[in-house]
């Protein structure tokens, strides 16, 4: 195995870790607008620009809508492009998220996950990015600041992969990760620069019959973002779905390649299984909750409970086969959603899990826990209670209330 490079330990909050990763990733254009709890990312990056530490064109736009549009336009012009937002900002980008993925522009975006109004709330939950589930973006969720740093670097490699060419959002829990100082190991600048490389473009057929790199270039005129009607639109959309399918492999490759230089990997890049091999009762969660959950699982294991955890790192593309085999022996599964899907009979992660397990002959009992909305604290004892419920469920053999609320005032 290749020897990992010597790394530097820095005390960074999640947002700072993201900004640092962007600084190292040879990003050409950053177009962004401030919103809590993402602000530190743009503030920190502005400092890098002001101090001449980056070769990046920083476009301080007048709205998130323009942040996404300028990012998309810069990306199709050939620039490696980054932006960041949260909550209402992401909601304002909604229209352009689809255009960005539809134009196959591999923009990378950090989301400091935050609740949506109303009522106004600046704290962490996953309502913002879950609402963009079907926008054609790859979605990764980080467990800690270290992973936020690592995932941003990886995201450029994933999105820009010629078999993928999709935008990537990396979620980090608002405040819990964005504003909390952690020890973060950072790679040397040149290592990151080498890892991300210079952006490549696929050769495509131009309308004057030549093949040329897929970008806006006066030497090879190309019409991008055209109108495509009943006769072509559908094929464009199917190609995006194929790109998502390719991303399943690419995310794993990038995860293992990154592990070789850094010594850090996140499961297979798609899911991280924690004490899951022989688990009878298991939970599924995204993001920072997993950190607490791992401690809870350890405690339960000490008491002889066969508890496990599946942390979903990649929500889009949904790693269907990987999840199926990971939970093959689990008897009762609790799926946690830091998001509510009104009238949807359970949260988005729960519904994804229930549907992918439908055809499994011995699928586990499955319950949904909606939790942590608007930054509501989730304690280890709350999390422990989930496993207790799962154990009861194993005794009784049936699920009375499949959709439950954790830590909700009664």
């Amino acid at each position: 195995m290749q020897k990992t490079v010597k790394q530097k330990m820095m005390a960074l909050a999640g947002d700072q870790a993201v900004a640092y990763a962007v600084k190292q990733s040879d990003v050409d254009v950053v177009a962004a607008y401030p919103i809590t709890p993402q602000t530190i990312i743009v503030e920190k990056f502005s400092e890098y620009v002001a101090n001449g530490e980056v070769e990046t064109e920083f476009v301080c736009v007048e709205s998130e809508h323009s942040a996404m549009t300028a990012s998309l336009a810069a990306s199709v012009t050939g620039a490696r492009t980054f932006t960041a937002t949260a909550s209402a900002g992401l909601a304002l980008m909604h229209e352009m998220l689809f255009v960005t993925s539809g134009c196959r522009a591999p923009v990378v975006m950090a989301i400091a996950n935050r609740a949506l109004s109303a009522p106004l709330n600046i704290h962490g939950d996953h309502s913002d990015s879950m609402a963009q589930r079907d926008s054609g973006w790859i979605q990764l969720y980080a467990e800690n600041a270290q992973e936020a740093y690592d995932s941003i670097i990886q995201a450029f490699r994933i999105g820009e992969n010629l078999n993928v060419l999709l935008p990537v959002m990396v979620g980090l829990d608002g405040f819990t990760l964005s504003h909390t100082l952690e020890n973060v190991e950072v790679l040397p600048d040149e290592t990151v620069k080498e890892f991300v490389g210079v952006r490549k473009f696929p050769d495509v057929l131009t309308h004057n019959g030549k093949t040329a790199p897929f970008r806006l270039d006066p030497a090879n005129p190309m019409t991008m973002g055209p109108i495509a009607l009943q006769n072509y639109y559908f094929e464009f959309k199917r190609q995006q779905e194929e790109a998502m399918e390719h991303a399943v492999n690419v995310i794993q490759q990038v995860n293992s390649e990154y592990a070789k230089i850094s010594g850090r990997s996140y499961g297979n890049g798609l899911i991280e299984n924690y004490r899951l091999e022989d688990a009878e009762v298991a939970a599924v969660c995204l993001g920072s909750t997993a950190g607490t959950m791992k401690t809870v699982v350890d405690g339960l294991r000490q008491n002889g409970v066969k508890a496990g955890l599946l942390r979903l790192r990649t929500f889009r593309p949904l790693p269907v086969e990987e999840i199926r085999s990971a939970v093959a022996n689990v008897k009762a599964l609790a799926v946690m959603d830091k998001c509510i899907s009104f009238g949807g009979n359970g949260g988005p992660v729960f519904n994804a899990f229930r549907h992918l397990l439908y055809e499994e002959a011995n699928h586990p009992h499955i319950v949904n826990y909606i939790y942590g909305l608007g930054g509501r604290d989730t304690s280890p004892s709350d999390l422990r209670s989930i496993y207790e419920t799962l154990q009861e469920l194993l005794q009784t053999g049936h699920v009375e209330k499949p959709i439950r609320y954790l830590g909700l005032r009664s």
Partner: protein
Amino acid sequence: MTTQEWKFTAKEIAEKPDLFLAGHRACAGCGPATVLRLIMKATRGPTIVTEATGCMEVVSSIYPYTSWAVPWLHTAFETAASNASGIEAALKIMRKKRRISQEHVDVIAFAGDGGTFDIGFQALSGAVERGHDFLFVLYDNEAYMNTGIQRSGGTPHGAATTTSPAGTVIPGKLEYKKPIADIMVAHGMPYVATASPYYWKDLMTKARKGLEVEGPAFLHVFAPCPRGWRSNPTKSIEYSKLAVESCIFPVWESVNGHCKLSTPSRLVALAPQKKKPVADYLKGQGRFRHLFKPKSKQLLEEIQHITDERWKCLLKKCGESKTSV
């Protein structure tokens, strides 16, 4: 090649290859299509074009066909200026990093009145405030024509549209046209101009000036729409002359805030007796038909009055107030 060197003679224009190509699906008599073709003839070198959703975007890019011989990007309705911001930023840094070969690439954003006065205004204002080097061209056909003639902030007072119909109680659009070019001048931008395709040389020269100026430039171009105006498709260019002669749409330019009448309007200022009544321009357009009924007499007079007031105001701004009224 600078503006001075470029003569824009008919011969030179004819010899220069088109960049907005034939085969697009614009309607007969489409003003915007003529405007785009002329402006693309006025470009000076490598150019990237971006367009807002709208008539010119849908007629020119129906996949797998295109009318664009230059790189072209469309993303959404309200995004012409933010597209230009991103393209310009990318070009700037990629040139610095030697990742593109061109020394300079011009960026033009085209948008209709909806994409400029209304939904695209925030992005436009922001892009101008940030000082991106691009030319924003508003082709103003005075309503949401692509979606079927709905009123916009650019629709003139009294015009009937499908969302401001001339009814028995309400006589068409009650509100006044937003003075968009003045608003852009107020941004303190280096170059703002208005133009009309009848005065093709004036239009092309202004487009070229807008490209040559460093920083943002805004060009407001009058662009008749026979479908939406319920006018004769053979009269579009004639209306673009009458609009200037009646001072409904005067042509002028502002260089670093210094406002100056352009020749076609200056001639009207110098010979006020030649200034045509607005009725000459309005009649024949179906959207104004109701104004010529006896009960609309007052409204017609009001339109004349407002036009005169705005003209006086412009003359003053251009230092021509002593010339005429």
